[in-house]
């Protein structure tokens, strides 16, 4: 609970900035490259397989002859858009990006690099953390869109080779009874999760105390805390936005 208050003070500190807009701009671009570009391969790979597996498993569950085939891809679409891409990928995002943010800040803390920034009169919180959060808010939704596309493509590949659904049925199902609001929902979730992962991981890393061992612990804690908060937020958002 003490951490909870400290976390909000930490967030407040982000906006007491001193440096020029140009500095933040440059730092944010650097973070975007670090977060975004380096995660593309992982996200594409994981999503494609998830899409493929979901298609196979949904087909397995819907073998009754009176269910039209295109329902399979309709289900895959809803799964990918609503849960797989924004939420499951957020957990992977926490594992990859969150842990590295915490590790990076933790190392800077224990090797006195953060102190060095402070001595130079820089607000180290906003200098180091704000670009990470902004970059995360910019990149994660893009990664989620990529992930949706890849998951649906993964399903298509299955449809191409499988006997139980044809590519034509698959595409038909994807477009059948499509509600654009699900995309709005997915993007809202992705913004919320991006903020959760980047701010919690930065917080954990920033307040590391001790040595190399503690940096490792901070990284682990960053991931665990982020994941728990993501799951809670996921439930709350679903209640808020989907339950009419």
């Amino acid at each position, binding site marked *: 609970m003490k951490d909870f208050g400290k976390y909000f003070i930490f967030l407040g500190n982000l906006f007491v900035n001193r440096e020029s807009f140009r500095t933040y701009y440059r730092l944010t671009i650097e973070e975007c490259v670090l977060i975004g570009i380096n995660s593309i391969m992982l996200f594409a790979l994981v999503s494609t397989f998830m899409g493929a597996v979901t298609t196979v498993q949904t087909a397995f569950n819907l073998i009754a002859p009176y269910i039209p085939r295109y329902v399979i891809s309709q289900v895959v679409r809803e799964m990918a858009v609503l849960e797989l891409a924004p939420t499951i990928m957020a957990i992977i995002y926490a594992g990859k990006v969150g842990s590295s943010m915490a590790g990076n800040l933790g190392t800077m803390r224990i090797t006195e690099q953060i*102190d060095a920034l402070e001595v130079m*009169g820089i607000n180290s919180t906003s200098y180091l953390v704000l670009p990470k959060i902004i970059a995360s808010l910019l990149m994660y939704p893009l990664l989620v869109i990529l992930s949706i596309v890849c998951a649906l493509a993964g399903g298509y590949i299955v449809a191409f080779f499988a006997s139980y659904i044809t590519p034509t049925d698959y595409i038909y199902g994807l477009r059948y009874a499509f509600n654009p609001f699900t995309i709005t929902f997915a993007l809202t979730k992705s913004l919320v999760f991006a903020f959760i992962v980047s701010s919690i991981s930065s917080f954990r890393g920033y307040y590391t105390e001790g040595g190399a061992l503690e940096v490792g612990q901070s990284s682990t804690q960053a991931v665990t805390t982020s994941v728990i908060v993501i799951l809670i937020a996921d439930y709350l958002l679903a209640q808020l936005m989907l339950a009419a």
Partner: protein
Amino acid sequence: MIELKNISKSFGDRKILNNINGVFQKGKPNLIIGASGTGKSVLLKCIVEIATPDEGSVFYDHRNFTEGDKDLKVEIRREIGMLFQGGALFDSKNVEENVKFPLDLLAKMPRDEKYDRVNLCLNRVGLQNANKKMPSELSGGMKKRVGIARAIVNSPKYLFCDEPNSGLDPQTSILIDELIRDITYDYDTTTVVVTHDMNSVMGIGENIMFLYKGLKLWEGNKDEIVNSGVKELDDFVFANKVMMAMRNK
């Protein structure tokens, strides 16, 4: 000139600094000496307020830093150069960028001039060909020297060095001490050096503060240090055989 008034600091229930008073003079190297673990680094951190003192205030040329507002703190901090015990180089930046970093903050200088200044400082610490090296590729002593270059690049009014020559060979050690002394004289900086090296003490110690278990036990200059009459200080000073021989003469 920097004045310390009644600085105390505890971690948990361990009192690390106990009511430290003192004055660090302008244009001279001021030394803080004491055994390992007595709180020298903590004192330095309290002075620049990376650690907040529990009690007491620090005055920079009569400006109250501890109780000053945010603007005053930033103003004073931009006049400070600091070398950390471990160098504290930014490990995502190469040597040149590390040294240039404080210049970029003030950013009133043309680009070329900045690089000239960086090279000048790297020259002074004897690192001519390391501009593009990353901190992970440097030895401990080299990191320290880059740290010094970064600390002096802005021509600071106040220079703090935490053990500038631990981990350096005796020859480089002396060079670094002389460098710190020269900078102090040339730019009239208020320099505070933490050390437990008696060579430095005898070389540049014009105003020395001796810490023992969080207390200031003695202050004076290098000529007075051998006849202080303080037992703990004698133990510290004459642990060294050369110093012992000097006393016996």
